[in-house]
């Protein structure tokens, strides 16, 4: 056969092959996927895994916020769908959801993982494996929470801003620096902390609370206020993989101070001289943990430097005076110190070293650590913790120097 014919033949075969092979085994069209945005895990009394996944409805989301909130509107305009399924393991439950979902559930966009309080108290170890192993789950982008109360209710709270609860949670997390009053811990951090001897994990807490502005449901009222609202609050403390206690909001910030994760927040302290009060706007802080070992006694010194501004000064203060500024610095430092000490007290009470004092000790005294690491949960509550805070809150004082001081007792 002439060379040219062979070339032509090969070319034809290649082109034909290209025509029928356009695509691949693993082709997945975007419109065939159900993008799971939030995953909640609970355990049934029989010990099975109960899984709730939230899949937004892109069409309704694109149409604007009316869909999710209107009780009378047609069902197709609901902005999301929650699938609840039961299985022996997480993967089993996910595949069980395929009986109901017309789209293949796809977890790469999942950003919120919620565990029920019951499950967390029994231990997360078993169910966490899936989240660490799955190639679809992005460890760093997922935030882990413990739910107080019924997760079905939480993930079904309507709201005109951020219609889909999963997206709303994600955005509340984004603005966590407004208060630093709740924890929003990435899944990666939880898994990494679990692999350490000298540090215990903690996660945020999610709750649906009553909405004080709720209006009674009136038929055809499209603009009703929902009865509940989603809130992120505080932190849940773990020992190994078991939930052992909660921190309230100021305590949570106390914890975040030590971990260098305070991005901002409000700090209300009594005014200088005991009159009125000052509200400060925290800009951030820097903390270092210094472990000390003297005669077998372990002491942790936490040094924190805080920077911020005065946002409100309710009282007869002249903020233009340096001595007043000094006094405010001192009061704010004391308030930060109280937050940290409260968090330490709570953590020691439940024997959960969420601060990583053990790790700090290991880094400083590796040989001594080897002898005590197995007893660390018992030693940790007895560790003396010193907190030194240096606050600088008068970078800016807003637009006025002297407060008006009307009607302050």
């Amino acid at each position, binding site marked *: 056969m002439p060379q040219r014919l062979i070339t032509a033949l090969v070319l034809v075969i290649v082109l034909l092959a290209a025509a029928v092979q356009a695509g691949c085994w693993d082709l997945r069209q975007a419109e065939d996927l159900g993008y799971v945005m939030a995953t909640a895990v609970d355990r049934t009394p029989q010990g099975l895994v109960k899984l709730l996944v939230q899949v937004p409805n892109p069409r309704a989301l694109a149409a604007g916020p009316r869909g999710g909130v209107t009780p009378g509107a047609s069902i197709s305009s609901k902005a999301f769908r929650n699938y609840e399924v039961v299985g022996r393991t997480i993967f089993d439950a996910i595949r069980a959801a395929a009986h109901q979902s017309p789209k293949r559930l796809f977890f790469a966009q999942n950003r919120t993982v919620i565990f029920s309080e019951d499950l967390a108290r029994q231990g997360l170890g078993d169910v966490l494996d899936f989240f660490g192993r799955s190639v679809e789950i992005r460890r760093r982008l997922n935030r882990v929470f413990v739910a107080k109360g019924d997760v079905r209710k939480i993930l079904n709270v309507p709201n005109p801003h951020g219609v889909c609860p999963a997206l709303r949670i994600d955005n509340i997390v984004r603005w966590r620096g407004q208060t630093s009053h709740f924890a929003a811990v990435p899944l990666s951090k939880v898994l990494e902390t679990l692999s350490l001897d000298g540090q215990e994990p903690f996660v945020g807490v999610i709750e649906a609370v009553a909405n004080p502005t709720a209006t009674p449901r009136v038929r055809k009222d499209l603009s009703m206020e929902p009865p509940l609202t989603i809130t992120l609050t505080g932190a849940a403390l773990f020992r190994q993989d078991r939930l052992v206690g909660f921190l309230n909001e100021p305590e949570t910030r106390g914890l975040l101070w030590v971990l260098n994760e305070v991005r901002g927040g409000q700090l209300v302290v009594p005014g200088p001289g005991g009159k009125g009060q000052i509200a400060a706007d925290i800009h951030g802080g820097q903390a270092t943990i210094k472990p000390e070992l003297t005669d077998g006694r372990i002491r942790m010194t936490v040094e924190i430097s805080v920077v911020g501004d005065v946002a409100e000064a309710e009282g007869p203060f002249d903020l233009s005076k340096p001595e007043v500024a000094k006094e405010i610095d001192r009061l704010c430092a004391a308030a930060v110190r109280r937050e940290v000490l409260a968090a330490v007290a709570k953590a020691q009470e439940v024997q959960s070293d969420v601060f990583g004092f053990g790790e700090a000790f*290991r880094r400083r005294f590796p040989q001594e650590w080897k002898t005590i690491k197995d007893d660390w949960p018992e030693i940790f509550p007895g560790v003396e913790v010193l907190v030194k805070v240096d606050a600088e809150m008068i970078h800016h004082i807003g637009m006025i120097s002297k407060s008006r001081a009307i009607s302050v007792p």
Partner: protein
Amino acid sequence: MREEGQISAYQAMGYQVSIVLATAILFVPAITAQYARQDAWLSLVLAYLFGSLQVFVATKLALKFPRETVIQYAPRVAGKILGKVIGFIYIFYFFYVAYFVQREFEALMSAAYLPQTPIIVVIIMLTLLAAYVLYGGLEVLCRVNAIILAVALFGLLLIFLLIVKDIEFTRFLPFLENGVGPVVLGAVVPGGWFGETAVILMLLPFIGNQGKTLKTSLLAVTILFVVMEMVVIGAVGIMGPNETGRFLYPTFNIARRVTIEALPILERQDAMFMMIWVAGMLMKLSTFFYAGTLGLAQWLNLRSYRILILPAGAVMTALGMQAWENIVELKSFSGEVFPLTIIFVNFMLTGFLYLLTFLKPKSLQGAS
């Protein structure tokens, strides 16, 4: 046999970098962190010294025979029979790593991207592409490599810059927690990998400016060292040694976890990493495939290696398919057996030949 074409010392350096890079960045951090934990970076320093020694010996040996590859002069140096055996070991080593590379490529591709695709398809695609590069010859290979390598190194640097803010330097403490033993153990695997730069034994006769070869060879190991340090410091500094050791592909994972809250568009850099890595794997396979095929042609005294490309590729693929049942076998093999075998070839065998050249100075005469 003389391969047509000529490359520069810097192109050879690119070849040496590519022959190590793609699999080393993926597999080595986990293996090193398992042994040396937070001192993994220090293991790399040891590995760098060891790798430099290997490439130094290999280059010195190669420079004694500026017109020939190791396959050609081994029979003169070590005697006819032993020399042919040594030559065959080198050739087998190139194919052996090549089919190991095929499987490593398949391992991540099917774990992360193409779980349904039969692994043979993934492997054949890459191998055919590498065969195409080989038909182009050494000059083409080196030019393609220069482009791919530039993009890959820049991309890795970019990923590193995006994650550098997440590195916690306290994770590297305490220093030498368990003494130097684990650090030395951790250095074996990356040291073996760095030693792959000894491929200069096959390249030297085609280099134009041979005077620079020693410098560029050491530079190649240095580039690899810097890239590996970036990857290991990134992985251990972000995830801690425990998690780094637990992962199959820690580098892939740190690329996935790029997060900049203000710029969500920069999240999920796995696509970028994949682009770098697939291109890098193509070059890694091509470099070994080329060295093996060229060596085999010279061993058999053929006029051109091109006739061997497809048969050798087919045999290589078949060997790769049967060698490991699954990722678990591949992983334990890559940590325990593989580094010792490549150290045997690149360090012991090369060193042995180098010593022989001093004992038999007459063997050098045919060289010039």
